[in-house]
């Protein structure tokens, strides 16, 4: 009997390993200060009651990728469960003097710059381990940044789904139409992650793209 039970258990484990559907891993990407962590906090708070990380007006506040597993989002009668990865802001240059201009002392600025470079490396490495990307852009800024072009190119090359978020539409100078015109081949949602504006539409689009 013990042999049969062990066989059943092993078979069951094998079946689970073979057919268990993993949660889709969705990375939140974008340049520094686009509102990635604010959006991650909004998603996680809305669906788990928790938070992902701290936010700041100083760039590179998030310098380590953070993963939240099993976030279940219910929208329009359907349900999806995702692993959300909040990544550090991508950049091609990091100068510690910019942190000093924000009032940090030299030692602290240099430390933050060093951590920021490590964060960028981590974010780039995550690109190879994702099932899709939410690309957050600041709707008050020029969307044709190299970071945006590189992230979009990587998703297109891998044929992975991408959702562009035009964030900060609560600000008067926001121009989400500029983002839509820049990357018309990808779906885009205009939101204010800070105020929750249009967040329901965002969740619907999230389920549609990654469900």
């Amino acid at each position, binding site marked *: 009997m013990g042999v049969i039970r062990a066989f059943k258990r092993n078979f069951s484990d094998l079946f689970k390993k073979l057919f268990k559907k993993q949660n889709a891993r969705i990375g939140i990407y974008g340049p520094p200060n686009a509102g990635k962590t604010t959006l991650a906090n909004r998603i996680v708070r809305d669906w788990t009651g928790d938070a992902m990380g701290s936010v700041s007006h100083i760039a590179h506040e998030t310098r380590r990728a953070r993963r939240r597993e099993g976030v279940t989002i219910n929208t329009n009668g359907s349900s999806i469960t995702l692993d959300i990865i909040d990544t550090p802001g991508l950049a091609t240059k990091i100068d510690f003097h910019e942190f000093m201009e924000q009032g940090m002392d030299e030692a602290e600025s240099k430390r933050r710059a060093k951590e920021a470079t490590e964060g960028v490396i981590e974010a780039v*490495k995550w690109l190879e381990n994702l099932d899709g990307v939410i690309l957050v852009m600041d709707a008050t800024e020029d969307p044709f940044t190299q970071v945006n072009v590189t992230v979009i190119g990587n998703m297109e*090359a891998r044929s992975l789904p991408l959702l562009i978020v035009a964030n900060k539409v609560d600000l008067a100078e926001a121009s989400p139409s500029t983002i839509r015109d820049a990357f018309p081949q990808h779906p885009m949602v205009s939101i204010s992650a800070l105020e929750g504006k249009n967040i329901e539409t965002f969740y619907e689009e999230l389920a549609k793209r990654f469900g």
Partner: protein
Amino acid sequence: MIPMQGFQMDLVSEHRLSTMSPVEKVRFIIDEVKSGKILVLEKGLSPEEEAHLIEMTMTLIEPDGFSGIEMESYPSEVDTSFIGKILKKNALKSRLTVIGPADQLKTLKKDRDMISALISTTK
């Protein structure tokens, strides 16, 4: 005679880069940019190579030294040629790319088909 001052700009042909492996391309670009040159790549890099270049750049940033690169490329275009469709499900055509030291090259304006940059002769 007043000695000419300025920066060096290298226009790198598609052929020159096509003979290099992805690792060699990134190394070549980093070495040239760190020495103060501005590179204009006729064909640019693939998105994966761009990501690798960003990664490599981050490992070389030093306080009061190399602060990174300024890189500007146009969004990729999907290769709609017959060969492109056969070879890859989603083949992308990379386009002209400008890369230089972050403290010397500054992008002024960029859109889908135009890059306008300022090159500083002083750091």
